[in-house]
């Protein structure tokens, strides 16, 4: 029992003294905020890119936009997200005071490049008769996309969006590279002030694991519901 007392003592020193657990809580909130913000931004960017790419297939006027999209996709997919963070913080948004916002933008722009392809395939999976029916009623291509195609496409790809959220949650742990105090960075800071090299890191690992397992569970329940509603 002696090791146990010693351990609880260490935990007390590490997390409770000086209210250090509070840094972890704000870090946790920041991680969630960055993840959700980046996901939302990524889905918006991904949708715009996907729609441009789908429409550019049959429309010469959209070629320049399509070309811009390709540049965006190539750059984002061709560089590591940590490097993108560094570029964001020290080159593009160097005068910005709000690291969280810059992190959301960076992870969002990054995620958009990966989500775009998922959304595009979701759009392609919608029966072509849907576009024809929309056009035949008098809707423009864009309105048909908005009211008729995209809602069906998103239903198809919701599980993939869920997986993107899980990936983002873990990916944001590198935000500490640019001094954003997310949960990982918070743990690291506690580690450095208390010289407890074990517990802060393990705790953070447990938090991520619990979040991911919870989300995965939620997702599979959701997917089953979705499939049932389709019969």
């Amino acid at each position, binding site marked *: 029992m002696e090791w146990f007392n010693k351990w609880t003592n260490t935990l007390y020193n590490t997390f409770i003294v000086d209210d250090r657990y509070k840094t972890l809580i704000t870090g946790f909130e920041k991680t969630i905020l960055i993840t959700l913000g980046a996901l939302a931004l990524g889905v918006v960017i991904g949708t715009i890119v996907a729609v441009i790419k789908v429409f550019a297939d049959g429309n010469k006027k959209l070629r320049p936009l399509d070309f811009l999209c390709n540049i965006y996709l190539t750059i984002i997919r061709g560089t590591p997200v940590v490097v993108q963070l560094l570029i964001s913080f020290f080159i593009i948004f160097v005068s910005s005071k709000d690291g969280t916002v810059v992190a959301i933008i960076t992870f969002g722009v990054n995620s958009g490049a990966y989500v775009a392809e998922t959304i595009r395939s979701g759009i392609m999976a919608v029966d072509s008769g849907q576009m024809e*029916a929309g056009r*035949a009623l008098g809707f423009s291509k864009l309105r048909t996309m908005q009211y008729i195609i995209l809602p069906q496409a998103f239903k198809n790809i919701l599980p993939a969006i869920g997986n993107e959220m899980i990936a983002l949650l873990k990916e944001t742990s590198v935000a500490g590279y640019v001094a954003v105090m997310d949960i990982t960075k918070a743990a690291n800071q506690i580690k450095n002030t208390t010289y407890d090299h074990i517990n802060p890191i393990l705790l953070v690992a447990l938090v991520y694991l619990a979040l991911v397992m919870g989300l995965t569970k939620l997702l599979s329940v959701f997917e089953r519901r979705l499939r049932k509603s389709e019969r």
Partner: protein
Amino acid sequence: MNDNVIIRTEGLCKYYRGGAIRALDGVDVEIQKGEVVVVIGPSGSGKSTLLRSLNLLEIPTKGHIFFEDVDITNPKLDVNLYRRKMGMVFQHFNLFPHMTVLRNMTIAPIKLLKKTPEEAETKARELLKLVGLEDRAEAYPSQLSGGQKQRVAIVRSLCMEPDVMLFDEPTSALDPEMVGEVLDVMKNLAESGMTMAVVTHEMGFAREVATRVIFMDEGQIIEEGTPQEIFDNPQNPRTQSFLSKVL
């Protein structure tokens, strides 16, 4: 120009693969107000292409389409405005699966004709009643039979108050026992004075309801006339040969 002409085409051509496939090869057709024009012909003869060109779902390679005297092949026109006035019913219904029957019917009038939701819904329920589906307004398409789906598709088009209705093999995807209920709706629509162009293999319907029958083959109109003329006394050997196979 005659005020009663709703659609007129001039030398309409649709080529694929740089002219290797001539889906439409110089079609001149005129549809007058109140006419029910039935288009028949072998598979691949260009019937669908003709119908789909009339509302520019296919862009013709050559030729002109006049809708109520406006040349809608003019690329400067906003074709969406003219499509509203041409209802279209597809072989595979193409209902919107993520919307209820009612929403399927009201979304276009609300968004495009700026009707209030109440107006649009009242009109939709009226039409549903006409086709015996008033109790299915809140259902989703996946909960309907094929015949019910097609009846909804027809009234969905009617909600836009079109000047002409185009039907592309509306009963071909249906189980035989459901063909009648859809043809009945179309017959009632014809009797109410709607201008219709119908591609179908239902020769009984053509004989009974059509004011004019057009026989197409290889992208061209081979022969046209009243149902009596075409079915009882076809002139062209190709018409004769086709009819001998399907009648």
